């Protein structure tokens, strides 16, 4: 115990180490704080917007208190859908800045509504968010390097290495020093995350996994640093090699991989989808309306006994061709989504080789702010859209009058439950390898002899 206290004193009396530790702690705390603030502001926005939309729906009711077949209410009612941030979202804000987390949906063609973007300043989004994931993946390794690059060379360059190694077999010395530095960095990162998790009310399981990710990412960088440090090079050479490794692993390879991924899995822009859907929807005006109805009834046989279309405009035809438009691009929608998921799968696989990518994948999955979350929200909207149509169709197709009590019984959106955590084998596998690397690094260090003078 005394020895550990002595080691601690040694670290605390080195200005570089103290400054590094404090800075990392502050950055992690700042990231957690700004994540919590962002999540709170998203909740606020959702709370602000809900009554606004309610008023909007109420105004539709005042304008069309009685409608012959629900056509006007269905056309003019925009329904509020939203995707509240999860309890862990503060850790990794993910795509929530560029993809909308609330959308107004009506019973018209879904495909023309689903890809609406959010208003965001692309120049601000470009460098990425400053959140806990950023601190862990980009910044923490630099602090590991700062604390470990002169672990051996510092002792050698100040002439103590021979004396120290002559005192014991070295294992004890390095084990202690490494464990202490590891513990301190773990506290600097883990404590803010822990406090944030308590404030945000994160589930214990998710918190445990978050801490495991933090511990494993650190383990990777410790392992790598120890391997390099144990080579016994000079401090600046060690720092150079480690920094280069950091650049390659967190800046170069992921960007290269992104390029390769986008090339090998081309996702043909959703533009095709929109163009096709528009052709299908507007084409309806050119073909005999009965033909559209037949196509609609083919997939919705329960309405085929509805009265024939009058010679003038009828809403049921309007809603039918929107639905037919959606159905005509269903295959393309599936292909589009499959492509996106395929990209996700491959980028997850990179977790085997790049622990930063693995940690990012796990944190964003836990936070439920990744591509899957975005798609799950779209699915939830799809379900709701179906509910809306199921609600309006009886009025439209049975000529049922739509009155005030019908407004009250319109379907209400219920947000999705955060998707259950699905095990990501490659990301966790990569992180498990990190511990192996850590052990290897420790072993190498224990073999160190102060030979070259």
């Amino acid at each position, binding site marked *: 115990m*005394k*020895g550990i206290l*002595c*080691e601690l*004193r*040694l670290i605390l*009396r*080195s200005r570089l180490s103290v400054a590094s530790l404090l800075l990392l702690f502050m950055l992690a705390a700042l990231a957690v704080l700004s994540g919590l603030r962002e999540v709170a502001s998203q909740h606020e926005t959702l709370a602000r917007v809900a009554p606004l939309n309610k008023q909007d729906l109420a105004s539709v009711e005042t304008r069309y208190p009685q409608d012959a077949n629900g056509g006007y209410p269905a056309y003019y009612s925009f329904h509020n859908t939203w995707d509240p941030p999860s309890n862990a979202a503060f850790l990794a804000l993910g795509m929530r800045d560029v993809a909308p987390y609330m959308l107004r949906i009506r019973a018209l063609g879904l495909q023309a509504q689903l890809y609406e973007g959010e208003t965001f300043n692309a120049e601000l989004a470009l460098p990425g968010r400053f959140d806990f994931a950023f601190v862990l993946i980009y910044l923490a390794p630099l602090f590991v390097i700062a604390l470990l690059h002169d672990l051996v060379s510092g002792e050698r360059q*100040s*002439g*103590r290495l*021979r*004396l*120290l*190694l*002559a*005192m*014991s*077999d*070295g294992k*004890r*010395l390095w084990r202690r020093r490494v464990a202490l530095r590891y513990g301190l960095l773990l506290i600097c990162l883990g404590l803010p995350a822990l406090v944030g998790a308590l404030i945000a009310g994160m589930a214990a399981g998710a918190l445990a996994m978050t801490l495991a990710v933090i511990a494993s990412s650190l383990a990777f960088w410790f392992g790598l640093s120890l391997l390099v440090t144990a080579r016994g090079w000079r401090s600046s050479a060690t720092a150079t090699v480690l920094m280069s490794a950091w650049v390659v692993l967190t800046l170069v390879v992921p960007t290269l991989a992104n390029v390769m991924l986008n090339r090998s899995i081309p996702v043909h822009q959703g533009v095709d989808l929109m163009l096709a859907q528009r052709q299908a929807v507007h084409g309806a005006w050119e073909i005999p309306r009965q033909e559209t109805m037949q196509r609609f009834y083919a997939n919705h046989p329960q309405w085929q006994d509805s009265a024939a279309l009058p010679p003038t405009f009828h809403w049921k035809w309007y809603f039918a061709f929107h639905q037919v438009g959606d159905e005509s691009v269903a295959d393309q929608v599936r292909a589009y989504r499959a492509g996106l998921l395929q990209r996700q799968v491959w980028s997850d696989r990179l977790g085997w080789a790049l622990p930063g990518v693995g940690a990012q994948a796990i944190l964003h999955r836990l936070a439920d702010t990744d591509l899957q979350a975005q798609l799950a929200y779209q699915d939830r909207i799809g379900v709701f859209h179906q509910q809306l149509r199921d609600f309006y169709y009886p009025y439209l197709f049975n000529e049922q009058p739509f009155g005030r009590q019908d407004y009250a019984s319109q379907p209400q959106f219920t947000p999705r439950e955060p998707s259950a955590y699905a095990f990501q084998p490659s990301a966790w596998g990569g992180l498990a390898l990190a511990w192996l690397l850590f052990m290897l690094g420790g072993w190498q260090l224990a073999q160190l*002899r*102060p*030979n*070259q*003078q």
Partner: protein
Amino acid sequence: MQSSPNTSAATTVLDARDVEAGYAGKTILRGLNLHVRRGEIYALLGANGAGKTTTLSLFLGFLKPSAGTVLVNGVDPFGAPADARRQLAYIPENVALYEHLSARENLAYLLDLARQHADSRSIDGALSAAGLQPEAFDRRLAGFSKGMRQKVAIALALARQVPVLLLDEPTSGLDPQATAEFNRLLNLLREQGVAILMVTHDLLSAADVADRIGFLNAGQLVEEVAASGDDRFDVRTLHRRYTELGA
């Protein structure tokens, strides 16, 4: 006292027999034979590159001999470094300790590293025995002179209470008064039965304290002289020979 020439092998603490060793394909020691006994101060002299520090590295277990055997109190230092190092204390050239720690803290820390339990009384005792003024015990080493640092290092060796002491150029950079004080300490240790091996350039200082002096040249012990008995050495003759070897 016990430095009679025909001491039995049992009292030999540092033992190197027919040792060959070197770094990265470069052989430095070629058939070294060296024995240091309990309560003996052995000074190893030699020019730069003769293999002095390599010899120390062998006893410290930092280096594996390519031939021959090395033993510290009967233990192979390369095979069982922890066991061997428990038997010895080492003071490197240019004593470097932790500048940010006080004398007491340095000792406490390093003794702990050597897995040796030391209370504050025994630490203070060692520091006093090494000749450090008590008011300096709690000052950080950053403000110490070279002589004072040397005393802390000796105190460390004293506190270790080990049978072997290895010294690398212990008196280089010390003024004559500090050197005399240092030699007094070595004598103290010798009386306690410690085997001391010092490698040095400084013939005068070595002649002052050493029981035996060995000359190392090109990786071999070329001559060994004793301070007492028939082959008692004469400093002037030695100096001449030493400079010839070094040339």
